[in-house]
């Protein structure tokens, strides 16, 4: 990891520790106040607890032009991105995608191209609906490895993170408490429950919390939709396309809508927010990732509406291409933050009980 980023975060953390006015804002501060000296692993853990809500920045009497020049959200964001790049496996991919929206776009276009090529070369093998464009077996052959590789990669990365922050053996109570924090995004409510300071200086607002929840729950619904389709396919011999009143559609349509509008809202908030309070290097990568995620959702919805038309094969290639790119990039893009955040919250539960 980059020592200059660590050194700067350590400097700022020591000032925060002598002040402690931000005590009630989020999980970062109680965790910070438990230490007197900050090892690299401690700082990485703090960085991954931070949600960049910026409450502490606007409350801080030591921000520039004060000579202490505190900007904790930025220092934490930089160490956070640096930690993800360091723990990612294989590493060079992370460096390319965390900070480069263009690389994400290129990977997505490559995904489209591969899918168009697959549709041309592998064809339908006599299937119906989407399988008229690309056979079910061909889809499985492409997406099973594209799904399993990221899982393996993230498992390696999280193991490296866990060692780095001194994590102990998992207990169910740690995990459930961490999931509780995630489910409510408690840390984006600034302690007093009025939200964060993301988009308009010191004004508190729930906009980012709600947008992020729409993205997270929308994504989980879409994922559940796909999973339910798999179960129906293999377990019950019920094949796509599914009618509206079926599990995949009842989960997928609202999920797709939440994900589409959630990503648009996240991008809009990000454009309004002060870039100086985040990791400037990550902006392109984060925007690229949000655009890709939004495109996955929107093209999925489009596929539903246009499924019976001549445009279906094209839209299918675009949607599946985007999904392919999204899956393969998961360990190296902003998507990885969800896994690290969860790991950090579990570690925080362990520290709280220690």
């Amino acid at each position, binding site marked *: 990891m980059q020592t200059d980023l660590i050194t700067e975060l350590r400097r700022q953390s020591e000032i925060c520790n002598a002040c402690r006015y931000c005590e009630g804002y989020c999980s970062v501060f109680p965790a910070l106040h438990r230490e007197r000296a900050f090892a690299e692993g401690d700082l990485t853990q703090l960085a991954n607890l931070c949600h960049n809500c910026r409450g502490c920045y606007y*409350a801080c009497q030591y921000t520039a*032009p004060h000579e202490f020049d505190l900007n904790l959200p930025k220092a934490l964001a930089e160490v956070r991105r640096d930690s993800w790049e360091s723990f990612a496996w294989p590493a060079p991919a992370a460096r390319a995608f965390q900070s480069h929206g263009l690389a994400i776009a290129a990977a997505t276009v490559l995904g489209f191209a591969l899918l168009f090529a697959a549709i041309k070369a592998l064809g339908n093998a006599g299937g119906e609906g989407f399988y008229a464009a690309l056979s079910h077996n061909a889809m499985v052959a492409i997406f099973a490895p594209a799904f399993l590789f990221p899982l393996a990669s993230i498992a390696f990365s999280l193991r490296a993170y866990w060692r780095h922050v001194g994590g102990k053996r998992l207990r169910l109570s740690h995990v459930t408490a961490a999931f509780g924090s995630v489910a409510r995004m408690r840390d984006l409510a600034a302690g007093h429950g009025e939200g964060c300071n993301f988009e308009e200086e010191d004004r508190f607002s729930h906009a980012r919390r709600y947008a992020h929840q729409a993205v997270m729950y929308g994504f989980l619904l879409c994922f559940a939709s796909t999973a339910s389709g798999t179960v129906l396919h293999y377990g019950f011999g019920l094949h796509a396309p599914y009618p509206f009143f079926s599990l995949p559609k009842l989960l997928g349509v609202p999920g797709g809508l939440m994900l589409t509008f959630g990503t648009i809202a996240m991008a809009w908030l990000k454009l309004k927010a002060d870039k100086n309070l985040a990791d400037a290097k990550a902006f392109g990568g984060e925007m690229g990732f949000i655009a890709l995620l939004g495109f996955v959702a929107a093209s999925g919805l489009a596929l539903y509406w246009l499924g019976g038309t001549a445009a279906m094969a094209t839209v299918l290639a675009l949607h599946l291409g985007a999904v392919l790119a999204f899956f393969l990039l998961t360990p190296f893009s902003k998507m990885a933050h969800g896994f690290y955040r969860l790991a950090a919250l579990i570690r925080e539960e362990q520290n709280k009980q220690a």
Partner: protein
Amino acid sequence: MSTPHDIAIIGGGNAALCAAITAAEAGARVLILETAPKAYRGGNSRHTRNFRCMHSGPLGPLVESYSEEEYFADLMKVTAGKTDEALARLAIRSSEECLPWMEAHGVRFQPSLSGTLSLARTNAFFMGGGKSLVNAYFRTAQALGVEVLYEAAVTHLELADDQIAWVDYTHEGESHRITPKAVIVASGGFQADTEWLTRAWGEPAKNFLIRGTPYNRGVVLADLLDQGALSVGDPTQCHAVAIDGRAPKFDGGIVTRLDCVPFSIVVNKNAERFYDEGEDVWPKRYAIWGRLVAAQPDQVGYVIIDSRSLNLFMPSVFPPLKADTLEDLATQMGLPPAKLRETVEGFNAACGDTSGFHPTELDGVATQGLTPPKTNWARPITTPPFYGYSLRTGVTFTYLGLKVDETAQCATENGPIRNLWAAGETMAGSILGQGYLAGYGMTIGTVFGRIAGREAAAYAN
């Protein structure tokens, strides 16, 4: 500015904002003239943390109860009776209704506290500290139509007979003159004007550090006193504490505090002890060491501890100097090494049974036959590495200010100034003759800010 304002408020801290909000809610058109740029708005309120509040039962974040009598007794202890009882009781009694008012105007409090400050019964702590309070009040005020000018330095209030005829200020390089119906002064003390401080204190004041805003230079205060406004307080009285000697000249705020004194010996530049380091716990001890250090040569003190004490106090913003021998530490600190060893050995020899050592309460572990004694936490300094901090006097605010009555109105010898009110540190000397009670400055600012806003609006309407 196209529309003339009813009320001009000088200053942009807690008292000014409470006055602005109250006056605007009463229908007055209010202008805030804040000397500081936006990033430094809020005066010393930026650095505050809590509000001392009377309450007859659990109230907001406060537990149990804190009666008027107990609160007043606490004030009497720190001021040694130098207070205006009527005004002090007014502030105390009004504090109880202030807390819900603060919450209704955007201030958020911490539910509970960790660390060494266990004041959950007497003091309500702002979530995020004083700057977040200031932010909330500016948002609220601006939503009520209050206009705010930053970097607007008031240079003169023209006192003609019994009223303020006009206000002069500069803004963006130009001079302006306005004629509001009423004026509220809430622009703090004069501690950031080193020259004035030196006139009051003598040469030692040049070595003082100013803990808060560099913008409280007392310009309006001096202007009004020159024109015959009645004053209170003693120019040599101020809230001064001993802070880390490496703190910035201005605006170091809370992080420069050092809580290590009770576990240490404190010596002057000649490596001699000069006061009982174990006299009492925070906050009483905290408030006396500023004056003690100010009375030493070059206005510096040096705290010496050993490795056993390092983790007994709140983390400090600057790391301590560290050495394996006392001589090394003395050399690093610029103290005479042999003399420091002699002082430490003399102290160590005077320490008795330390089995009752208890860091969080007065433990009675005292020295025998030592002058000055150390009456608590007297444990030999023997276990290397040794650590040292330097101490300097840090001034929070000065007490010389404008004399006000129970309606926050200012006066001359000839009687009240009809359209001039004062609130906050600029009139706190009316109540605080000496000493300080944690969180009481915010109480005075909130109570008298609201009174000034109400009175000025009633006059202007």
